[in-house]
């Protein structure tokens, strides 16, 4: 059986779903970052696969951009996370409600 575009898209969808569930369910900020990464990478897979399918490099270039932005985002995010942990001694989402409406 040859692995075609559909397989990649299915994989991408499954990963996206896993990421979405993670975003919704996880209370640990670190794991939330993981879930976000899964979301981004699922999209990257789709980009790369479709790009290859059409023979157009734009999608792959876009995937690189996403990776770069994800890396800087994680860098900033982890920095904030460490500062938060130093101050409060935990990284539980339920305690981060100072912006309550």
């Amino acid at each position, binding site marked *: 059986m040859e692995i075609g575009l559909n397989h990649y898209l299915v994989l991408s969808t499954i990963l996206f779903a896993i990421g979405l569930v993670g975003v919704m369910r996880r209370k640990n900020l670190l794991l939330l970052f993981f879930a976000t990464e899964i979301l981004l990478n699922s999209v990257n897979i789709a980009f790369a696969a479709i790009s290859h399918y059409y023979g157009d490099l734009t999608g792959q270039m876009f995937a690189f951009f996403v990776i770069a932005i994800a890396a800087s985002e994680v860098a900033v995010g982890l920095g904030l996370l460490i500062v938060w942990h130093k101050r409060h001694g935990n990284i539980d989402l339920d305690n*981060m409600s100072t912006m309550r409406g």
Partner: protein
Amino acid sequence: MEMFLYIALFAPLVGSMFAALFSASPKTLIAGIVPSALLFISFLASSILLAYVLKTGGSIHVEMMTWMATGDLYIPFGFMVDQVSVTMMMVVTLVSTVVHVYAIGYMSHDKAFNRFFAWLSAFVFSMMILVMSDNFAGLFIGWEGVGLCSWGLIGFWYHKEVATWAANEAFIMNRIADLGMLIGIFLVYWNTGTLQYVEAFAAMPSLETDILTWMGIFLFIGAMGKSAQFPLHTWLADAMEGPTPVSALIHAATMVTAGVYLIVRANPLYDLIPHVGLFIASLGAFVALFAASMALVNRDMKRIIAYSTLSQLGYMFVAAGLGAYWVALFHLMAHAFFKALLFLGAGNVMHAMNDELDPFKMGGLSKVMKGTFIMMTIASVALAGIFPLAGFFSKDLILEVGFIQNHYIIYTVLLFTAGLTAFYSFRLVALIFHGEERYKLFGIDPHEAYKFMLVAMTPLLLLAIIAGSLKGTYFDMVTIVLPATQYHVHSAVVYWIMTIGTQLFVIGAIAFAYKKYALSEVKVPDGTSAMENSFGYKLLKNQYYIPQFYENYLVKPYRELSLAFWKEVDMKIVDATVDGIAKAIYNTGENTRDMQNGNLSTMLKWMVAGAVGLLSLAVVFGLAVKFSSEIEFFLSTLGVQ
């Protein structure tokens, strides 16, 4: 000449504005003198216009500016001085000048002296607009303006409950009639396409009689309200709560005659519909008798004079309804002079008696108030129609009009009313000025009014005496615009019998009044005598129970209906809907604020929910577009377009 027209029209407005400047400050004499002087100027300008109209026989017509011009509708602020309006202008400016000067004395102890003159001059301005306008729209503005000023002046002493009540009653009654008037004006516009008198009346002969009848009826309803004809008459007697100069100017001489003026002005219309005219005349005759009968037993000096005004307005409507427009206008003029004089005299008496209104508590005042006594007696003689005073010429003429046109019932009613008029007028004079000095029982020390007040009244006195001799000149003048029908009884014998008979009848009534009330044994009634307990007396005393009828069968049901509407419709439907919308929004906010609890996890969940929602919408719409033809087919089978 245009300049004089503008001076005559706007001088009262300037006076009113001037007095209004001081309306909140304590009494300043200048606020009374300046409006009076300006009114005198207005009177002079009117006289010049009268001289011009008399000399040339023409009229002056100016168009100050365009007021409304949309499509076919064109209404200018146009003013016209013709033979009819100049007569009214003379009456209005003369009586109001006299009343203004008189009021400087009469109101001198009143705290709201300045406000009084602001209102009074504003009234004169509105009245001038009413009589000088050359179209129905301007007439209506003046009509409403005098209504407003009348409201302000009846309720002048607004701290008195009865005064504000009377003011509102007058205003509301007039609103009812004004609706009729407005419908009449709309009918005129719809059918003739214009509101200018000249053009509208020129277009009327070609219209159907039905339409003209409705026009005539609705315009007359307006006149009925302003002139207090039955059944809208109750406000006039209650309007006597206002200061006496107001009663003299507004509720005797000028405003209440506006209805007669309207009929006279619309004479080309009423000439085309004699059946409406006959109705007007019949109603007028009825009101003449009806009002005179109520005046017979009343114990309020001002109300007696008010009923007499009502009765005389009835006479005027008889003349106007029978097509004798110049006679109606002539009686209007003569009546304005002697009735204003009578009211001002009553004002003097009221001042002397510390605002006591019951003539039974007076008596013998002729000794202390000689000037007022003479004036009121002459005014009453003129009102009764004794030769050679004003009333003889104008009132007997109305009787003759009725007789010549073979309306013998109207004639008889009016003749009988003439006797009643003489009786109640002299009952009043006898009770006030003759007999025993009953006021001593009540510890009142009467005094004559200021000299200048009496001097101010003399022009009216002179006119009440000599107005009859102006008849020839007046006839030649107004018949240029009004139908010039001479009313002469054909046979000289019948004429003399009628005239002398009427005179004897009236004199007899006067003598009877004196015999009954001028003697010393008249006592203050205490409600025990047989006459006071008779049914007729009670009926008349209670004004035929008409005010009670209105109160019980119109005002009360209306109030109940309003209450019901307020509680059932307004509170339960209108308010409930508005409150419901507000509550729904408030509850939505209350219930959804949990979404914003600041918890990142919850917010992320909502974000996902939103994304899913939008995605599913996109899918649904995408599918709908894709299968639109199928959906349409499916809907059409269900019968939906």
